[in-house]
């Protein structure tokens, strides 16, 4: 009963939708206030933390398009983030500063890699898909580690920032912060529009019953591959911001642990829900901050938490919050 009510909410029942939009709006407003809070307390540290969380959220939202909507558990999603970050890093290192050159390059690299690896990976399902996406990501990881011109394993430190049509938008902390926030809101809107669109409806149906969807006349493969490429493009955008925020890129951005983090965020937040990946990313950064203050081995505490949430909080944190907000709704499905 609860499960189907939840999925109905994710599928865009009006009541659940309004509630979820309210929560997202609240989160965005709170995020927008962090630079102000940061001035009172922490001196910029809070802003940096919020930027990292938002970049992670952008990547996680794109992964949820695959996992939550499409049922494609990709274990190599960080590779696309890394491609975006390296496009940024290499461009800056080579003296190409215009963001209007960097972004297309990042999109082209990630899109092409997704098109080729997706076309191969999507011929498999389940555990094999997890394995093969991981394998492709590892290939890229080692390829990046061998770029001796760009720092190889040690990574590449960047001494300048990208330029946005002559303005210093990405050069100041506030400008960068607002750009990332705007991108996050845009990505959130885009992915939630896709979810209820014709395309998203086919994608969600194919997760539940691909044979049925095929006998309706849809080529499931084409829809999945398109989603795979879209998710890669969004992840690359996160990667560009990653490079701009950290002024440093290294193969570690695309390591399998990073891909694992992204899956953890999606599961933790609630797969296939409007706000799951967003809430999961913010929660992960927050909990890492709090726990690593207590112990260096913070993952020893985070691990069991993830287990408990996977076991008991059906629909993840987002599902749990929505149940807190409106217990009547889950009974009304």
């Amino acid at each position: 009963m609860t499960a189907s009510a939840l999925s109905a909410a994710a599928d865009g029942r009006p009541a659940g939708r309004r509630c979820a939009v309210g929560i997202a709006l609240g989160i965005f407003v709170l995020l927008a206030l962090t630079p102000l809070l940061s001035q009172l307390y922490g001196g910029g540290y809070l802003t940096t933390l919020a930027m990292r969380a938002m970049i992670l959220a952008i990547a996680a939202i794109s992964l949820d398009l695959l996992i939550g909507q499409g049922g494609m558990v990709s274990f190599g999603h960080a590779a696309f983030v890394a491609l975006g970050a390296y496009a940024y890093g290499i461009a800056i290192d080579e003296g190409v500063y215009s963001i209007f050159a960097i972004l297309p390059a990042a999109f082209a690299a990630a899109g092409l890699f997704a098109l080729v690896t997706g076309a191969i990976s999507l011929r498999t399902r389940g555990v094999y898909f997890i394995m093969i996406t991981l394998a492709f990501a590892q290939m890229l990881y080692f390829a990046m580690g061998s770029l001796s011109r760009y720092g190889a394993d040690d990574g590449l430190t960047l001494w300048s920032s990208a330029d946005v049509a002559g303005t210093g938008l990405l050069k100041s902390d506030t400008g960068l912060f607002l750009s990332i926030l705007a991108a996050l809101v845009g990505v959130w809107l885009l992915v939630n529009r896709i979810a209820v669109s014709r395309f998203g409806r086919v994608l969600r149906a194919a997760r539940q019953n691909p044979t049925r969807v095929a006998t309706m006349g849809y080529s499931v493969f084409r829809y999945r591959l398109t989603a795979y490429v879209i998710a890669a493009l969004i992840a690359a955008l996160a990667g560009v911001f990653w490079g701009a925020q950290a002024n440093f890129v290294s193969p570690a951005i695309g390591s399998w642990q990073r891909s694992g983090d992204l899956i953890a965020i999606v599961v933790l937040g609630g797969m296939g829900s409007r706000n799951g990946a967003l809430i999961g990313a913010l929660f992960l950064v927050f909990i890492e901050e709090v726990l690593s203050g207590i112990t260096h081995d913070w993952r020893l505490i985070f691990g069991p938490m993830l287990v408990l949430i996977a076991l008991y909080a059906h629909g993840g944190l987002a599902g749990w919050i929505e149940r807190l907000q409106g217990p009547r709704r889950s009974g009304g499905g």
Partner: protein
Amino acid sequence: MTDPVLEIDRLTKSFGALCVTDDVTVTLMPGECHALIGPNGAGKSTLVHQVSGLVRPDRGRILFQGRDVTALSQHARAQAGLGRSFQITSIIPEFTALENVALAAQARAGKSFRFFRDAGRERALNETARACLGQLGLGDRGDLVAGELSHGEKRLLELAIALAGAPKALLLDEPMAGMGRAESATLTQTLLGLKARYPMLLIEHDMEAVFTLADRVSVLVAGAIVATGTPKEIRNNPQARAAYLGEATA
């Protein structure tokens, strides 16, 4: 003589040493209901799977509206106008009944690479879906989550999905499976009403339904057709009786 809508031509399929489809030839004429009967394990479902494209035959051809579709994928055959229902209910469980049918209507409408407009609010799709649900007596069930419908309602929903694709022929794999007597009788009447518009290849164990609906009956035993004829001929055919009807009434 008119051309058949569907022509299964000397189809053969083996799983290892087991021959599940043995040189089967079946035709479906416009406006016809052709029933396939046979004991469990005779290879009826496998035959339908080959026609819809879920299983590839080893040999033989499938012609649909005069066109060889043997090499086409499932979705291409569906687009060409082959609608089907499954023996084991196959729906989108988390979608509402209406959305299940609207999704099928959307496939018919084409252009599903649209990323922004809310598909749930597309009036044309929803109206088609409502009309199909109404035809099967599910008019008031549209807003329910499909997974929570009763078994009989899910069977009907499957048919509604098939109809929403505006098929040129229907492959019905035991549409009455698991239904009560009264439900079966109602569905038989509904199918009788649809027969004129949609040629049907019908697999069914419910003999009352078969003899009410079918214009021709083929008996499948161990992967091979042992008899084809009018319901009356099949009733009196000793081979068919021995293979199947005898067993059913014993």
